């Protein structure tokens, strides 16, 4: 087992991650009636909107303070205030998130102070504006995501009467996955507040008469009451303590904190349901047990094929962890596990498990695709699981790619991929197994011919079957 330390790198060759403000947008898109404005120059927000629009196939409205040279030299306070004015006018949101960029951070913009000032000037001191410092050079989009959730909770949650709701805090998973988790919660008869909830806002049903502000998202009133919840279940094992909303709620308000993996794979779904069962006192219902049975059936059906899988897994740390565990449960050996984020957690958590499964494996943190590619080749990976930027592994190394995570910008349906719960895991596993089979079936005639046929070979006949 090797852990590559790449921190000394002078050049990143084909990035495996995006920047902090990009991650910060997502949680705000999962709050009811909320808008985001990015304090920086125009391009960043446009690029991020483009990326998200392609993944979710949804209009992604994100404001920019459109900082120009003047604002950069003399301070962008006016831009921010005018920007907030215009956002309020056009969108009439109930809440605004203010994210910074590398530019704003470098010139030292204090969005906390500027926002407070703005609200006083406009005579609306109680209006929720939530600044999140997300310098593009500060961390990857995964850190941006968690920090935004952490700041949202920090800003809104208030000491409240204890109540029976469970806080569910989720990482960046697909809208379909969020809906599945909500279904599990319903079946467990758990009363919950799920944050952030972009299951509807970033995967809205088609309907006539377009609404600028999509319906859905976590209610602000519910977030305020998260401080009085009976427990927090955070799906964020890999999250740094400073970014952990669950830990914050525990420390600040004494809400019992359960930090769990994404419920993907038998063990993790079992664990998720067990915790819910303990918290609610309700048994896991029969229909979920049947789904579990079907997953086991699927695993048995495909175990031999999966045994041939040597996977390279890349993306956001939390998802990478969940996928690796699921692979391990099914006899697929993760030989390269990679993330562009800086997190020590991933290797801590995975190292023992991977070492048990295979002798040679690589855990790469803060890495890039040139490294992922060369290690994948070295380790003989034959299947890749991760977002669209891994397409090179297929193109250059003929390693087939099962698309999963964010962003998926070269295929449709990123927002509809279901991979959590017993049912989602079943669907995920089928996608992986079938990719392995497709690859095998596509190549075995040629391979076996090359390896074993030693005759002179008749000329190929033109008519099939003859």
């Amino acid at each position, binding site marked *: 087992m090797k852990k590559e330390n790449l921190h000394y*790198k*002078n*050049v*990143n*060759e*084909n*990035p495996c*991650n*995006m*920047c902090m*403000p*990009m991650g910060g947008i997502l949680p705000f898109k999962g709050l009811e009636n909320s808008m985001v*404005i990015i304090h*920086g*120059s*125009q*391009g*960043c927000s*446009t*690029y991020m*909107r*483009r990326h998200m*629009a*392609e993944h979710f*196939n*949804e*209009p*992604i*409205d994100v*404001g*920019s*303070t*459109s*900082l*120009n*040279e003047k604002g*950069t030299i003399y301070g962008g306070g006016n*831009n*921010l205030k*005018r*920007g*907030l*004015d*215009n*956002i309020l006018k*056009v969108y009439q949101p109930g809440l605004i998130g203010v994210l910074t960029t*590398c*530019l704003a951070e*470098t*010139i030292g913009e204090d969005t906390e102070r500027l926002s407070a000032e703005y609200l006083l000037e406009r005579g609306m001191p109680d209006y929720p504006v939530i600044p999140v410092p997300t310098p*593009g*050079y500060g961390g990857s989009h995964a850190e941006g995501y968690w920090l935004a959730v952490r700041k949202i909770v920090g800003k809104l949650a208030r000491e409240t009467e204890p109540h029976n709701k469970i806080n569910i805090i989720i990482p960046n998973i697909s809208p379909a996955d969020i809906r599945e988790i909500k279904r599990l919660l319903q079946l467990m008869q758990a009363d919950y507040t799920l944050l952030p909830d972009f299951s509807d806002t970033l995967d*809205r049903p*088609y309907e*006539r008469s*377009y609404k*600028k502000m999509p319906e859905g998202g976590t209610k602000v009133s519910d977030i305020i009451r998260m401080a009085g919840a009976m427990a927090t279940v955070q799906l964020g094992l890999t999250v740094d303590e400073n970014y952990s909303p669950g830990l914050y709620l525990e420390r600040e308000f004494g809400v019992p904190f359960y930090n769990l993996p994404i419920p993907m794979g038998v063990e993790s779904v079992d664990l998720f349901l067990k915790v819910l069962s303990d918290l609610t006192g309700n048994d896991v219902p029969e229909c979920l047990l049947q789904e579990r049975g079907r997953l086991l059936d699927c695993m048995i059906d495909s175990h031999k094929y999966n045994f041939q899988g040597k996977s390279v897994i890349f993306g956001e740390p939390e998802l990478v962890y969940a996928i690796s565990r699921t692979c391990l449960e099914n006899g697929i050996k993760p030989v390269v596990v990679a993330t*562009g984020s800086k997190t020590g957690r991933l290797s801590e958590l995975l190292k023992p498990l991977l070492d048990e499964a295979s002798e040679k494996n690589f855990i790469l943190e803060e890495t890039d695709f*040139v490294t992922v590619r060369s290690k994948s080749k070295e380790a003989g990976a034959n299947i890749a699981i991760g977002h669209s*930027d891994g397409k090179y592994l297929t193109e250059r190394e003929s390693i087939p790619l099962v698309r999963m995570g964010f962003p998926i910008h070269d295929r449709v349906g990123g927002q509809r991929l279901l991979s959590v719960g017993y049912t989602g895991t079943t669907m995920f596993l089928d996608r992986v197994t079938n990719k392995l089979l497709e690859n095998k079936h596509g190549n075995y005639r040629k391979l076996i011919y090359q390896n074993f046929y030693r005759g002179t070979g008749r000329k190929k006949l033109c008519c099939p079957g003859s």
Partner: protein
Amino acid sequence: MQAIKLTDALIEERKNSITVKGSVEAKQKQSLTCDAESVAGCVSQRACVYCGARVVLNPVTDAIHLVHGPIGCSSYTWDIRGSLSSAADLYRNSFCTDLKEHDIIFGGEKKLAFAIDELVRKYDSRLVFVYSTCVVGVIGDDLEAVCKAAAEKHNIEVIPVQSSGFIGNKSAGYRAACDSLLRLIEPNSGDVKDIVKIPDSINYLGDFNLAGEVWIIKSYLEQIGVKVNVAFTGDSHCDALKKAPAAALNIVQCAGSMRYLAQKMEEIYDIPCLNISFIGLQDTADSLRKIADWFSNEAMLKRAEKLIEKKTAEVKPLLRNYRKKLEGKKAAIFVGGGFKAVSLIKQFKEIGIDVVMVGTQTGSQEEYETINDLADEGTVILDDANPSELEKFMTEKGADLLVGGVKERPLAYKLGMAFIDHNHDRKHPLSGFVGAVNFAKEVYSTVCSPVWKYAKD
């Protein structure tokens, strides 16, 4: 035609950026405001200076494209374009100095120098473009000095691109890219006057070889006897670009990005330039004639006429069929540059579609005047629009389809409207005679899809 009230158009500061052809307001107004900074909080569809530069330079296939900045700028632009290459494919990588907090405080010059060293050692390339991004502009790294030192050290071209995101908009990025190209083609020695011109040769400016478009146009030109010296920048490479000063003529397709380069080449190398357009049947034919005319070569003109006749005969019946299905539909246009918008209006006319809204991210005054001339009364014309405005005008004017880029697509679909991608990442050519058919086919495939039957109420 339904009248549009601009008074309820959304943001006061945007008023002068929107006009309706033939309206009272339009007559009172001097002209449309364009090439201005985007208004804060307006959710502009525009990108940044760096984006403009990256679009123009990225198709140089054998260059190391190194982004000096934070990771985002690099990851959002990694291989998202459909520019094709006939040989090298180094351009499909995205290299980045991935600046971190430490570099912001202490400066990134050293890191940049090391990055260049590493890349040059690893990849066989004679050309490095170093893009500056927002943060680099602020911390004041001396790109010029680092590049110069690296060029001497490795004895290759290392060219800075001054594309700090906040110093303007996308157009400024086009300029920055053209400045870098000018540096690249500048002869290292000898007098400019001594350059021997290649007869009947052109440089083809402003085509990025999306889905092989350069190849298509090149073949037309070669068939009529014009030699294409080098294309800027589709499927180009360092050595070919360096030969640019020897062309007899520059033809300019995407004027927004390349007019400046053409002007400069005219000043410095005495190469005259022609504006042409290979988008749409009419424009393609006109442009071929214009070029042959310029060379005042009888044989060439004849060959051009023959080619036009042959190709037109091939595609006309196809277009006629599409036209029958599409006649009377209404289109809205929101694209990057004014040049593209102008061509699109004409192209829609060819297939019987009325244009009811035209907007661009970076159109120039001149282009908006042309748009205004071409547009029907009542057409909404707007610069640097945002989603709310697009929604409002497309709905009010009853558009059946929108032409735009990736960000606009989901909006159109959510409004129950057909959509045409006219973006850099498309995978089929829209230029030339084939392109005209592809365009009509794409319009047909989206406007006449059965899906709308279920989506309308």
